[in-house]
């Protein structure tokens, strides 16, 4: 077996896994703090990619500024989203939050289809054809950037969650909402920030992947369901669990896809989720909340 082939697969899987992780961590954070399953999460990933495409292609803004703008923009959108729609839900009747975010996803997705049609668009950048070559392993520079961005985002998220007051508050609310409120944590402020971070991560993922895969309105749709499966596998509400499960899934998908026919790849996430639910319903890493 070709070692460089294996390394190639691993690296590809790592990149995809990191992207999965960005999306899944945001989803997990929002669920942990607000108890809301955000059905529209994939649409913000898609919007991030669309925005990146627009900024790069139509406004000729460079790669790094685009990434920064899209991420900040997505976080702002998340903030507005919370204020406008989610704050009134407040955890009462969980079906309402699922259906509301589902409605949002319908608006965004079909709106995008209506505005941009389903034709995928390729985002070209001067770096598109640059590769880093190490022996027989070829890694496109853009993928490496995506990997780097993902790792940077992990570190930033870790620092926020574990080194700042508000991050600790988020973890507190995630584990025990009542107790957190009793010690004076304002759930609104914490929720707002959680949504902003979650959506921001999604947007970042979209912008990072836009030059690598084609941009089209339905790209979020296929990712979000995998993200659901990932957060169940990692443990509902467990952000680091989601990250680990996501990277593992990315690598596994890549490896299996390299050696077996691709038919098996797409169903992997859901099959794994079903197995986990049967054997260990609280997820691989669990949480305070029972599944």
């Amino acid at each position: 077996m070709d070692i460089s082939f294996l390394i190639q697969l691993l690296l590809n899987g790592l990149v995809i896994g990191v992207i999965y992780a960005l999306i899944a961590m945001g989803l997990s954070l929002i669920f942990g703090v607000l108890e809301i399953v955000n059905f529209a999460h994939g649409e913000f990933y898609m919007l991030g990619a669309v925005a990146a495409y627009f900024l790069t292609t139509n406004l000729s803004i460079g790669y790094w500024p685009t990434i920064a703008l899209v991420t900040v923009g997505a976080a702002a959108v998340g903030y507005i989203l919370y204020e406008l729609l989610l704050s009134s839900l407040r955890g009462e009747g969980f079906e309402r939050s699922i259906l509301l975010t589902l409605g949002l996803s319908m608006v965004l997705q079909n709106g995008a289809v209506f505005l941009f049609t389903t034709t995928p668009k390729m985002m070209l950048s001067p770096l598109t054809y640059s590769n880093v070559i190490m022996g027989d392993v070829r890694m496109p520079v853009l993928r490496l950037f995506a990997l780097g961005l993902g790792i940077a985002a992990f570190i930033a998220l870790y620092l926020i969650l574990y080194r700042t007051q508000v991050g600790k508050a988020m973890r507190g609310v995630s584990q025990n909402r009542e107790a957190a409120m009793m010690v004076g944590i304002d759930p609104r402020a914490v929720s707002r920030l959680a949504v902003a971070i979650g959506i921001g991560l999604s947007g970042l993922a979209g912008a990072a992947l836009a030059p690598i895969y084609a941009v089209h309105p339905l790209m979020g749709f296929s990712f979000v369901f995998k993200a659901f499966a990932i957060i169940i596998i990692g443990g509902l509400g467990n952000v680091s669990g989601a990250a680990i499960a996501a990277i593992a899934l990315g690598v596994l998908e890549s490896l299996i896809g390299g050696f077996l026919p691709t038919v098996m790849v797409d169903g992997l996430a859901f099959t794994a989720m079903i197995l986990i639910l049967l054997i260990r319903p609280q997820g691989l890493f669990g949480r305070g909340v029972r599944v």
Partner: protein
Amino acid sequence: MNNPLMSGRMRATLVVVGLVLLFAVPSFTRNEYVLALGVSFATFAVLSGGLNLVYGYAGLLSFAQVGFFGVGAYAAALLVTDANWPVWAGALAGAVLAALMGLGVGYSSLRLSRHAFAIVTLSFALLCMIVSRDWVSLTRGAMGIPGLAVPQFSFPGGLSWRLNKPADFYYLLLGLAVACQAVIYAVVTSRIGRALKAVKMNEPLAQSQGINPLRYKLMAVTLSAFMTGLMGGFFVFYLTIVDPSIFDFYYTETMLIMVILGGAGSFWGVLFSSAILTLLPDMLRFTTDLRMVLYGFILILAMLVFPGGIGGWFERRRIERWRKVPYGGRGTP
């Protein structure tokens, strides 16, 4: 349930008149567009009725319905095409298979939290689509199975009915829809439906009264899976092709809107809204995308402002009327 709008007798009359009119339609027009609308209404009436049973009465937000629909469709198509089964047997087998899957999905996921249940049912539907697309040796993959046979039903006594006109499918699917709705109605207006609603309204209270929530929930899931699968098993012959698009999320979104708008748990509300939402968009000539955007807005609005839908509004009015009546009398504490 007391309907404040009309008496039972008036409602029954309206239903009979409505049915007579519906079945008379093909005698007045051969317009295929109208007949197609009728087929669409019949199909969505069963889809949304089944979802209403599971969500509105049992309180389970399940996204698996489209999975059962497609399973019934594929099973029927495969049995008829590959094993030469008669159509009615294939559809019935599809229904049974769907019911068994419903039992399986229900039994394994009803013990989980409601969030996990929603995600699992969603993943079930997705897995069905993935399998239909990728397991080519079983399902012929993305191309599906085109050119399905024209159904022919043979009755004892030599009569046979070949469904080669749109009107034929209109009668068949409408008849099926009426039968399914009748079953749903019989269940939800019986004490079974009452217990189901009790479980949804206050599960611990129901448990303390001897009601086994799992049993009732499983019954709702399995029954609705059966009916949905049965409908799929026949519908696919109207389409004359089965392919992975039978699992489209579009069906899920549409039936959800119908249930939410009609009022989850309101039999007539959901039936009414499924009629409106089948006819109206076509009359307004919306493209699918815009229609979905509109549905999305309605869903958001509904969740923020009127989660109970039309049926819920009537229910609240009924309760408010009782509040206004002054009470008093001997022994009233």
